[in-house]
């Protein structure tokens, strides 16, 4: 897996050469008509594709529920249809006089994506902000009432507290275990390393819902006298002479039992990325330290950790973002009851179960605002990368 890092390093080097290759053009600048055309080519592909999809998805699906037909249709539209639309727009643009062609052509390429991002991310974000100042039906302005509710209601305060705990505990555990495993597996032969890593990594492919069922089975509880314990944890717990425990009802510890599920899922991710980082630490530095008499744990703390600190930050922020938005695990395991609710799950419950749009929107805004520092961090990191190019 070390070659992944090498590949990326060489990509950055090559990128130093990247610069726009539009044909050179020294004519008059863009005018009003150019702007109209830019908007036109940007909108055309999404709108036409939507029209066809709408027809395919609703009309076809209503007549007979033959999924194969629907999927094949969607594939044809998704690959060939969208491609044909791009082709058509390009064909039209290439027939424009050069003055327009030069300015319009880039929007044939990036326009449709910008339109889709606007519809599915920018527009909803703006509307959600507005809704968060409105009442449960999304009418009339109640201004800060929804936010005051969030920070005074015991239910949402509990969700906030739990979310903060999740964000601290899960990344810390996932990164520690992942780092420890990566360091140890590094000392095995290459086959043994790849083999053992794939077991740790495997849960990454499992859905949160699937993982929740897997772990509900482990935490399964039967009161004494209602048969043998079939949950592994209670099986072990009773075998060493204890009374069976309803793990998921034990406030506040049940929060921790739910966090274990996400740790189980995320350690593989931390391990793979950190392992690539560890392998990129130059061997001669490590050897020099060992020749100078450094103990293994000194090599780890004084050389490996500082060398991979930027990778550690990336892994931590990534896991924090995932954890902050966790919804499925809590929803499936406890529906947020027994003191286990988290903000992301609470948002869906408020909006979906209770039909309270204002409260749901305000919780979504809290989710976004809390994550904004990490967003800024990501953007900064990206800009630093670009500056290196």
């Amino acid at each position, binding site marked *: 897996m070390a070659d992944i890092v090498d590949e990326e390093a060489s990509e950055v080097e090559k990128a130093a050469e990247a610069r*726009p*290759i539009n044909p050179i053009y020294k004519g008059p600048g863009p005018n009003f008509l150019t702007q109209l055309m830019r908007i036109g080519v940007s909108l055309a592909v999404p709108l036409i594709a939507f029209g066809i999809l709408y027809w395919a998805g609703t009309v076809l699906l209503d007549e007979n529920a033959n999924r194969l037909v629907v999927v094949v249709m969607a594939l044809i539209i998704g690959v060939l249809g969208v491609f044909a639309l791009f082709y058509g727009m390009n064909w039209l643009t290439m027939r424009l006089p050069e003055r327009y062609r030069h300015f319009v052509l880039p929007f044939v390429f990036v326009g449709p994506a910008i339109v889709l991002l606007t519809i599915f991310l920018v527009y909803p974000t703006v509307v959600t902000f507005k809704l968060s100042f409105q009442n449960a039906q999304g009418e009339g302005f109640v201004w800060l009432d929804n936010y005051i509710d969030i920070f005074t209601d015991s239910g949402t305060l509990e969700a906030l507290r739990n979310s903060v705990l999740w964000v601290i505990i899960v990344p810390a555990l996932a990164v520690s275990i992942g780092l420890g495993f990566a360091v140890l597996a590094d000392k095995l032969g290459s086959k043994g390393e790849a083999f053992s890593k794939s077991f740790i990594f495997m849960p990454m492919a499992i859905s949160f819902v699937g993982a929740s069922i897997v772990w509900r089975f482990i935490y399964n509880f039967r009161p004494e006298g209602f048969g043998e314990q079939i949950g592994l944890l209670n099986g072990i717990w009773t075998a060493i002479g204890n009374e069976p425990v309803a793990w998921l009802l034990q406030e506040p510890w049940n929060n921790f039992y739910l966090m274990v599920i996400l740790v189980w899922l995320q350690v593989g991710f931390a391990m793979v990325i950190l392992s690539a980082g560890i392998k990129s630490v130059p061997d001669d530095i490590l050897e020099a330290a060992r020749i100078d008499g450094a103990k293994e744990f000194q090599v780890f703390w004084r050389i490996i950790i500082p060398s991979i600190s930027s990778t550690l930050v990336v892994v931590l922020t990534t896991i924090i973002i995932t954890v902050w938005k966790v919804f499925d695990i809590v929803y499936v395991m406890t529906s947020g009851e027994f003191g286990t609710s988290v903000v992301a799950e609470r948002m869906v419950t408020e909006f979906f179960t209770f039909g309270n749009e204002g409260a749901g929107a305000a919780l979504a805004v809290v989710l976004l605002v809390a994550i904004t520092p990490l967003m800024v961090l990501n953007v900064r990191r990206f800009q630093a990368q670009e500056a290196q190019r």
Partner: protein
Amino acid sequence: MTTTTAEKPATQSEYVPDKRGFWAGVFYRWPVKLVILIVVIIWIIPTLGVLVSSFRPPDAVNANGWWTVFTNLGSNEWTLSNYSDVLSSEGFGNSFLNSLSVTIPATVMPITIAAFAAYGFAWMEFPGRQWLFVLVVAMLVIPLQMALIPLLRLYTTINLNGTFPAVWLAHTGFGLPLAIYLLRNYIGSLPSSMMESASIDGATPFETFTQLVVPLSVPVLASFAIFQFLWVWNDLLIALVFLGGEPDVRVITLALNNLNGSRGQAWHLLTAGAFITMALPLVVFLSLQRYFVRGLTAGSVKG
């Protein structure tokens, strides 16, 4: 593992059992191996329990723990009836097809649109090129919850709720930031001399894109495809909100969630259902792990 590496000191990561004989090799660095073995066992036990239970008869699943099958080997009964029950009477077969119907288009559509956009961002000059891309990077982090309410309202007005296109489009929109980000970084790193010579030879940008850029970008297209496939297949939230739980459109994660709600103690069904949900992603993951790791490195901030 070959003798060529045998001269290196033991502090190197290469591990050299050859000189020591088989048993010495097995016990070489045994504390490290023991820790690794314990962690690996802890990590696979949860999945193993589900797998074993899904093949046991319902009575046996309820009578004793799944781990007892290892203590009384030989007297165990195995069955496939849990799977046939879940697939037919609990509707998982239908849901499996629904999940495929959602996942395949929702994986393919963002790739096409993002590939064009990535090429534009990497190699074309237009106003706002820089800050629009910074905006895309920022969008990687926006929580899905932000988009749910307005989109649901929008879908309700145009009568799109509960249809496959609703989910295809939602996944396309939410998948685009990551797709554009990944593809643009890769396409932008292709050598500019190549692009220039294509343009000198008279290729239009469109021809350069289809005949040069797309064939060269197959690895990154594959890694995004795998990532998006797993993401859409494993998604519960978008399917729950925009598609709903009607049996004719319900996806497999929702089917499992509903089974969990209605028959939370029917472990023979739940384990079989969980395994059906996990089967396809696991196959995709195990066969295409390399590409997946690559996509993950850049992509896990999504969602």
